[in-house]
């Protein structure tokens, strides 16, 4: 049996050490009381971090910077694209954060200056910080695939940042005639929400089955395999037989060029024409990362994986999709669990402590149909300076799970969404 984590053990010890220590710790407390933390990004990572910083220590002055007054989540956006939920279901405001005493500033952060400990906003405002948390999500590598530029997204939506793009893809699918072809092309690794494309295929197939049964879905995947592949493919065969054609890297699945005007994707050996095309470009950390020297040659942000402090810019922490936290996937759940660990570490560091040994959980639910859910889960520890999978934990929904199990997981998918979104935005 392993020992209890240092974090928990220290907390147990700390209580008994309190009386002795009272007189000694004044400077650290004064420092903590006036500490300012600026959080950039109001999504799964940023909003969680802001809220949990306040939970851990309400004397910390927390400012959240987010351009939008409403945040639309990528998780569960496939239910909107598949016609199961309205966009209001996945749209969240920031009143819950403000009610906790968090300053919410609706502006775009354009630069983090680690040396000056300042964040510059697009409107000219400058925010000073003792520590900064950057959670900008992803940006796209426009032009990395020929023709896949920002200019085409009103015709060929990516719908990989939720909001107007989600509604546009839904509208195009609604307008598509029965017998039409929907093409989806996921990006190379690493990218946000690895099981997302499989779920999107599933929920569009579910919509076609009930509304446009003669239609087809073609997946052009530049990778060898995809997340939960066995479970998704079994579900497609069972629920949507003959509807989904999946082509991977070995089957001419790599898209070399997007011809937006001709609604065509060009591969090595041919052209595939669709009525609706969802091309999801390759990805990197959100723009602020490049603008602030937080990203490396990979386009993502290296961090210490314990407190998520950048290894390139001291005092600045990067969490969520933008950070390099493999083997954790780039998921909303990961971002939120990282945010809690990062917030605890910052509360500790501001109090003059070293951050404790972290532990993380990720669970990604996907819907294959409204009453057919699957999941992948994993618990992560921290060893030799790195996040590692805890041996024996985690794994997929069993391939022989019965209908009751699959239905339960579909209910849990929705339960997860409602609980985590309320945990984050209130």
């Amino acid at each position, binding site marked *: 049996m392993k020992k209890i984590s240092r974090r928990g053990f220290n907390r147990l010890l700390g209580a008994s*050490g*309190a009386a002795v*220590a009272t007189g000694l710790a*004044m400077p650290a407390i004064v420092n903590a009381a006036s500490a300012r933390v600026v959080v950039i990004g109001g999504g799964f990572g940023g909003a969680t971090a802001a809220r949990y910083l306040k939970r851990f220590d309400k004397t910390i002055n927390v400012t959240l910077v987010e351009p939008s007054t409403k945040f639309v989540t990528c998780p569960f956006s496939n239910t909107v694209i598949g016609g199961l939920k309205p966009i209001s279901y996945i749209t969240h405001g920031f009143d819950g954060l403000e009610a906790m005493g968090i300053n919410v500033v609706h502006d775009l952060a354009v630069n983090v200056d680690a040396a000056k400990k300042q964040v510059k906003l697009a409107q000219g405002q400058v925010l000073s910080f003792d520590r900064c948390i950057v959670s900008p999500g992803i940006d796209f590598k426009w032009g990395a695939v020929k023709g896949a530029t920002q200019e085409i997204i009103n015709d060929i939506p990516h719908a990989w940042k939720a909001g107007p793009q989600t509604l546009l893809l839904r509208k195009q699918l609604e307008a598509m005639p029965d017998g039409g072809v929907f093409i989806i092309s996921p990006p190379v690794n690493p990218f946000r929400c690895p099981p997302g494309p499989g779920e999107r295929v599933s929920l569009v197939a579910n919509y076609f089955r009930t509304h446009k049964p003669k239609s087809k879905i073609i997946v052009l995947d530049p990778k060898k395999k995809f997340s939960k592949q066995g479970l998704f493919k079994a579900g497609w065969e069972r629920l949507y037989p003959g509807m989904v054609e999946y082509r991977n890297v070995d089957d001419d699945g790599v898209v070399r060029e997007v011809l937006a005007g001709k609604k065509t994707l060009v591969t090595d050996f041919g052209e595939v024409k669709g009525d609706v095309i969802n091309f999801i470009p390759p990805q990197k950390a959100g723009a602020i990362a490049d603008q602030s020297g937080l990203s490396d040659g990979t386009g993502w942000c290296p961090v210490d994986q314990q407190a998520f402090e950048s290894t390139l810019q001291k005092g600045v922490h990067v969490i969520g999709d933008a950070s390099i936290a493999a083997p954790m996937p780039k998921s909303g759940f990961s971002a939120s669990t990282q945010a809690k660990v990062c917030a605890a570490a910052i509360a500790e560091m501001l109090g003059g402590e070293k951050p404790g040994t972290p532990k993380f959980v990720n669970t990604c639910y996907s819907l294959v149909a409204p009453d057919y859910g699957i999941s992948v889960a994993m618990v992560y520890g921290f060893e030799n300076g790195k996040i590692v999978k805890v041996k024996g934990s985690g794994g997929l929904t069993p391939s022989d799970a019965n209908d009751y199990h699959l239905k339960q997981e579909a209910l*849990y998918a929705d*339960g997860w969404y409602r*609980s985590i979104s309320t945990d984050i935005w209130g």
Partner: protein
Amino acid sequence: MKLRIPIVAGVLLASAFGIGPATAEMAPGAVLANTCYSCHGTEGKSLGAMPTIHGKPAEYLSTTLKAFRDGQRPSTVMQRITKGFNDAEIDALAAYLGQKSK
């Protein structure tokens, strides 16, 4: 082994001034338990099909989690998750949740 002096001292100091920062949220097991909230709701008050774990005694939570882990109680995802935690960690997070519920 280092003591968690400043934060605990902060509780005493703050209570003397009557402000009380939320350092109870950094009690033993708290950061582990916070992960539960992603599915079981803040403070364990579930908004969906997952059971509410708020208001459950520590001993019940600890026994149940270990039963999931050891396969004595059927589950969809809980066995996969509890296999990542040892007895001490389960006891710590159960103690935190149990004490919060009082």
